[in-house]
C-alpha cells in the first residue's frame, strides 16, 4: 500500500488532518475546490466562547500547510474520479485543476491585478455583504496567496472566446485584428503571470488512504419564504453577519445594513431557522447556532453599544466547555434580550422589517420593528458531497451527511476500508470538535500506514 493520503476539502478539518499526517513524515495530497484553504473558518469574525480572532488563530496553520514539504496542495481543484486499484488496494485519484488564467509559478502575489481589474461581481465568500473583483483571492490572508480569474465574468476572456467562436468579428473596421476587451491585468502584471490561454489540467495521484472532509453549507434562505425567502436584503444568514462583523470583511467590521448602509439599532436573531423543523426544514439540531448567535449578539453590542439585540430561540443548547457561562454573559452582562418562541413571519414595511413572533414564557405575541434580521440557518452538507459519496460508495444518511461505520465506536471510519471521515460532512459540529475529529481521522490513517510497516 502506498503510504500517502488524500484529503478532500481544506477547511479546518482537512487542514488539521493534513498537518497531523504530514508532520508524522507521510505525504498528503490536499484538494480544495476554492482558490484558497481555510473553509468556513476563514469567513468567521471571532470564535466562541473565547472571542479569538478566527483568521488569526488559523493563519499559522494555513501558512504551515502552504509551506509543508510533505503536503501537495491543489486548490481551485475538484476530484474528477477516484478508482480503487485491484491488486494493492490503492486509490488512483484524478484531480481537475481549474484554469486560473494566471501562472502561479510566475505570480508573486503582489495584488496589482486585483487593484487594476475594473469589474466587480458579487462574492460568494462575502455572502452578499461585499463584492469582489473578477480577478480575486478570497482574502488578503489567502493561502496560497495567488489570484484566479473568474472566466465567466472576465471581459477579456469572454470577448476572446466570442472572437474565436465567430460570435463577434475578429477584425476591426479597418481590417486589423481586433483585440479582446479590457486586459488591464495583462497590462499591469509586473511578472507577466497572466495567461489567458491556460486550460484545466488533469493530474493523477496514487494514495493508500483518504480522508473526506467536505464540510457544510447553510440551508438556503429561499426555502424560508416566511422569513422573506432571501428577497429582503437586510435579512441575512449567520455567515453573512460574520462577514459584517469581521475586521477583515468588506465593511472592516462595521455593522451596517446591506440595503442602505445605515447602522442597525434593532437586530433580531432567529435561531433554528430551518433546523429542528421536520415539516419544512431539517429535522436535526444544527448544534452551533445557539453559541454563534450568542457570540454575534455580543459582538454586535460591542460594535453598536446603543443598539438592541433580540434572540428568538426554541431552547438554548450550550453543552460545551465554557459555553453556558458564555451564554450567561450574553444575557446578563451584555443585555441581549432572549425570547423563547418562534418567529412565525417577517416582512418588509417601509425601511423596517416587521418580525412577528411569540414569547412563550410570558404567553404573548411579540412584534418587533427591526432594522436587521439574522437567521441562524441550518447546517446542511455541502452540495458536492453527494458526488464524492457516489465516487467512493460512501453511505449517507437521509439528510445527506456521511455515515460512520459505527456512530458510537468508529465515528471517523467510513463504510469503506481505507476511507475516513472528519468534520461537518458527518453532521453539524463546532470548531474544537471538528479539529478533534480530524486528528482522530489522521490517527486512523497513520495507524494504517504504521501497520503496513510492521507487518511488511
Amino acid at each position, binding site marked *: 500500500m502506498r503510504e500517502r493520503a488524500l484529503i478532500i476539502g481544506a477547511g479546518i478539518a482537512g487542514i488539521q488532518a493534513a498537518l497531523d499526517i504530514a508532520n508524522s513524515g507521510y505525504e498528503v495530497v490536499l484538494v480544495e475546490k476554492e482558490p484558497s484553504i481555510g473553509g468556513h473558518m476563514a469567513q468567521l469574525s471571532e470564535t466562541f466562547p473565547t472571542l479569538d480572532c478566527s483568521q488569526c488563530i488559523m493563519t499559522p496553520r494555513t501558512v504551515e500547510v502552504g509551506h509543508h514539504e510533505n503536503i501537495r496542495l491543489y486548490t481551485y481543484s475538484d476530484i474528477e474520479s477516484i478508482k480503487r486499484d485491484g491488486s494493492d488496494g490503492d486509490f488512483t485519484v484524478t484531480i481537475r485543476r481549474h484554469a486560473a488564467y494566471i501562472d502561479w509559478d510566475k505570480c508573486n502575489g503582489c495584488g496589482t491585478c486585483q487593484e487594476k481589474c475594473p469589474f466587480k461581481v458579487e462574492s460568494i465568500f462575502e455572502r452578499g455583504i461585499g463584492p469582489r473583483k473578477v480577478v480575486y483571492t478570497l482574502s488578503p490572508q489567502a493561502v496560497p496567496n495567488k489570484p484566479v480569474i473568474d472566466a465567466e465574468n472576465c471581459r477579456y476572456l469572454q470577448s476572446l472566446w466570442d472572437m474565436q467562436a465567430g460570435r463577434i468579428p475578429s477584425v476591426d473596421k479597418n481590417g486589423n485584428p481586433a483585440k479582446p476587451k479590457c486586459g488591464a491585468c495583462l497590462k499591469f502584471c509586473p511578472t507577466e503571470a497572466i495567461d489567458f490561454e491556460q486550460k484545466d489540467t488533469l493530474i493523477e495521484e496514487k494514495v493508500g488512504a483518504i480522508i473526506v472532509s467536505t464540510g457544510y453549507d447553510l440551508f438556503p434562505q429561499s426555502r424560508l419564504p416566511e422569513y422573506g425567502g432571501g428577497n429582503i436584503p437586510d435579512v441575512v444568514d449567520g455567515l453573512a453577519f460574520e462577514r459584517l462583523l469581521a475586521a477583515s470583511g468588506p465593511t472592516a467590521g462595521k455593522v451596517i445594513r446591506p440595503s442602505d448602509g445605515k447602522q442597525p439599532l434593532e437586530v433580531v436573531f432567529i435561531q433554528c431557522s430551518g433546523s429542528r423543523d421536520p415539516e419544512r426544514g431539517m429535522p436535526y439540531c444544527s448544534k452551533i447556532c445557539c453559541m454563534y448567535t450568542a457570540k454575534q449578539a455580543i459582538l454586535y453590542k460591542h460594535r453598536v453599544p446603543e443598539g438592541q439585540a433580540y434572540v428568538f430561540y426554541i431552547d438554548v443548547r450550550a453543552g460545551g466547555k465554557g459555553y453556558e457561562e458564555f451564554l450567561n454573559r450574553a444575557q446578563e452582562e451584555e443585555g441581549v434580550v432572549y425570547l423563547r418562541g418562534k418567529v412565525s413571519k417577517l416582512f418588509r*414595511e417601509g425601511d423596517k422589517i416587521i418580525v412577528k413572533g411569540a414569547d412563550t414564557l410570558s404567553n404573548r405575541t411579540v412584534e418587533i420593528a427591526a432594522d436587521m434580521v439574522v437567521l441562524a440557518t441550518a447546517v446542511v452538507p455541502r452540495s458536492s458531497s453527494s458526488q464524492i459519496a457516489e465516487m467512493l460508495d460512501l453511505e449517507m444518511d437521509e439528510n445527506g451527511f456521511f455515515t460512520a461505520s459505527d456512530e458510537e465506536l468508529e465515528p471517523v471510519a467510513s463504510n469503506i476500508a481505507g476511507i475516513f471521515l472528519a468534520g461537518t460532512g458527518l453532521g453539524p459540529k463546532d470548531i474544537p470538535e471538528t479539529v478533534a475529529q480530524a486528528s482522530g481521522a489522521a490517527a486512523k490513517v497513520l495507524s494504517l500506514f504504521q501497520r503496513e510497516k510492521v507487518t511488511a
Partner: protein
Amino acid sequence: MSIAYFPGCTLSTKATGYDISGRAVAQALGMPLEELPEWQCCGATFPLATENSMALIAPTRILTQVQKSGGKVTTLCAICFHVLRRSQNFLEAHPEMLERINWFTEEPYDGKATVTHFLEILRDEVTWKGLAEKVTNPLKGLKVAPYYGCLLLRPPSEIKMDDPDNPTILHDCLAALGCEVVDFPYQSECCGSYLTVSKPELPHKLANEILESARRHGAQALVTACPLCQFNLDYPQRPEHQMLMGNEIPVLYFTQLMAVALGLEQATWGMDKHYIDPRPLFESFRLSVVGDPLKTDH
C-alpha cells in the same frame, strides 16, 4: 357546460353579493352554476380531533350529492371549499371511516368526488388569458390588493391550490381584469375568523393592521374569496365604529370585480350590502353594459 355548485349557508344569507355575482360571471363565461339539490351546511370547520366521524357526516352528505350530480363540484366560499376538500382528502385516505359514515348515513358515497374552488376553474379551465379576452371594461388604474386570508390556501400540502407564502392566483385573476394589483405583506394573514363572534376586539385589531398596510401600499380596495374575511374587514369600518375615520376602503369579492369588468348589469354586482360601498370606485370608469346573463338566459 354547467358545473355543480355548492353555495353554502353564508352565501345564501349574509354574503348574497358573492353568490349573485358568482352565478352571473359563471353564466357569462358560458358555464352556469347548477346548485346542488338538497344541500345543507358543510359544518364550517374541518375537524382536527382524531375522533371526528360526527363532524365528517355533513361534508360527506354533500359529497354524496356531488356524486349524484356528476362527481365534480365548485364552491365560492373559501371555508366551504376548505372543509369539503379536506374532508374529501381524509375520506380518500381513510376508507374505514368512509365505510363507517356510509353505514350511518345509509347513502353510500363512492369517495371519488372532485372538489374545486371557482378560482381554480378560472385558472385551469377558463385560463387567465381566456378571462382577459372576455373583459369589456378593463379596470385600468384601479389599485386593488388581493387578500387571501388563511383557509383558502392552507394547509398547502392538502389544499394544493397555491403557495400561501407567495400566492398568485388572486393576483392573476385581478391582473386579467386589468386591475393594478397591489402586493402587501398582510395578504395571507388571518382576519380573526370566528373570533368575531366571541372576542370581536381581536378581529378588529387584525382588520386594522391589514387595512392599514393595504392602504399604505396604495390599495383603493381589498379583494377576497372568503365571506368571513370580507365581513371581518368590512364590518369594523362602518361609520359608527369609527375605526378608520375617513380612511375606509371597500372590501370586495373577486367575482364582483369580474362582474364589473365583464360588463354585466349592476344588479349582478351584488354590492348593496357592503358596509363600505364599493360602487364609487367605478364612477370614474365609463362602463359599458353587456347585459344580465341570468335574466337573458332564464
